[in-house]
């Protein structure tokens, strides 16, 4: 399981209602459906992923998140997930608002652009960073809104969003005392558990 997914599954209550925005091939929901007996649905736009979801019995709706979540009732889910997708949205701040309208809790993970490797790429090479978690060249990347841990903290503050937990991990899924001390510098993936203030 992807390192960020292993951490966030701990925050999902058994039997709860889960909406996964950009659910990919449905592997996280497959796991949550069987391990936590959640009732779940995912949104996805990739045809191949949608078929994989269907084949594994994951409820999946073909829907572009950039068009909002207007078709979902307020408070109709316990947790709304947004994993490694925030940076590809046209209006991330609007979707965060929508997430916390539709669900009581939100879980957001994204590649931390403030990581030292990214900073080094820019500072020394003068090139846009390319890494395992940001594998695309600048001209072909679907990731149009990169942010850092500090940026996301600031957005939560401005948007009246309460951060319940903030964790960062590196590519080997390891957290350390140093990463806790300097999350924005050492963390490669940022993981947030959020709710309304």
């Amino acid at each position: 399981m992807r390192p960020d997914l292993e951490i966030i599954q701990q925050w999902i209550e058994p039997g709860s209602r889960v909406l996964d925005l950009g659910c990919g091939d449905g592997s996280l929901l497959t796991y949550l459906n069987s391990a936590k007996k959640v009732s779940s649905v995912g949104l996805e736009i990739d045809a191949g992923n949608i078929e994989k979801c269907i084949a594994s019995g994951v409820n999946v709706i073909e829907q572009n998140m950039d068009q909002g979540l207007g078709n979902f009732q307020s408070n109709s889910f316990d947790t709304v997930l947004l994993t490694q997708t925030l940076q590809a949205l046209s209006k991330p701040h609007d979707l965060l608002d929508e997430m916390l309208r539709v669900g009581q809790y939100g879980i957001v993970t994204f590649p931390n652009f403030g990581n030292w490797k990214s900073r080094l790429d820019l500072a020394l090479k003068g090139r846009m960073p390319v890494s395992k978690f940001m594998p695309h060249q600048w001209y072909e990347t679907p990731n149009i809104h990169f942010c850092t841990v500090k940026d996301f903290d600031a957005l939560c503050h401005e948007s009246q969003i309460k951060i319940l937990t903030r964790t960062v991990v590196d590519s080997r899924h390891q957290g350390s005392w140093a990463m806790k001390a300097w999350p924005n510098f050492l963390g490669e993936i940022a993981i947030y558990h959020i709710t309304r203030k």
Partner: protein
Amino acid sequence: MPEELKTDSVGIVSPKCIHFDEDLALRSGKTLSGFDLMIETYGELNQDRSNAILICHALSGDHHAAGLHSESDAKPGWWDHCIGPGKAIDTKLFFVVALNNLGGCAGSSGPTSLNPETGKIYGPDFPVVTVRDWVKSQVMLSDRLGIEHWAAVVGGSLGGMQVLRWAISYPERLRHAVCIAAAPKLSAQNIAFNEVARHSIINDPNFHDGHYLEANTYPKLGLMLARMVGHITYLSDSAMREKFGRADSGIESSTANFGRDLRSGKLSFGFNVDFQVESYLHYQGERFSENFDANTYLLMTKALDYFDPSVDFDGDFSGALQQATCKFLVISFSTDWRFPPERSREIVNDLLKAGKEVSYLEVEADQGHDAFLLPIPRYINALKAYLKRAHTEIVERAT
């Protein structure tokens, strides 16, 4: 290669007529005292009778959904590419039942059959039947076949509406609902097109108030026009451009001729058929008028117009769907303008609102509403994956 030799065909099939002595109380208040249903089945019912799939047909469909009736048949059943061993609706896994709905003209009780009370052909006296009535008769058929739960009820267009009615009115009798290219109810535009069709039939001089069979004739021109209009609504603009834009007529040399292929290579400067699309529509209309009953066409379009499960729930469709307990697969096609993707999304959103389990696919396809009858890979693969999963559930439940 003849159809029957294909290894993925269900082969030669024979329809069965099933008679029901019981009364069927109809939505209109009338009662059918006894009726027949023509059915075909493919595949084998398993021991615990849990692997049955019901196929609901659309406006002009019938019980002959797959295979051939004889080796000399030119064409297989209407959904043959979808039903068969190894196909999306896999007859190696499922027992598939297809029927001709009441009011039809392919052998089930309808305007062309004998009214047992008078001994004469029903004609226009066959009562107006609704989707609700059809599903009621399908439930009676399920009982007769000893099928307590359908593994899935599947249908496109008007067939998809029967699927929705099943899920709402008989939730305990199906595990999966597959609703393709349908709508929660018809729009004014949909009804308008149906009314043009009915108007042209009813005003054909050979209609004889519906008693045309007794007069040894039929409203050919009316039925033709009805089908021509209908056919236009089944195709998309792009599908017609593609179909009639081959530019092989000589005059139009550009490939981008907007589907304006000429029939004979030159304009007639009269009111004759100049363009291929015109002769195609004439051909489709003519062929249909020779094979379909006008009173049945009127009944089918009325069933479409009347379909609205929300009426029992103060107009709240999600309230109606609240009754359902099955899982849903909803599929729409990008260029379908008869029941466009927005209509399927209404179904999906109301299912979500009702807290139901649903998957939704919006398939990119040029063919318009007709796409639901065509072998479009993404659509067929998803349907196959969904039903394969449904079969896995059957096996898991049994162990």
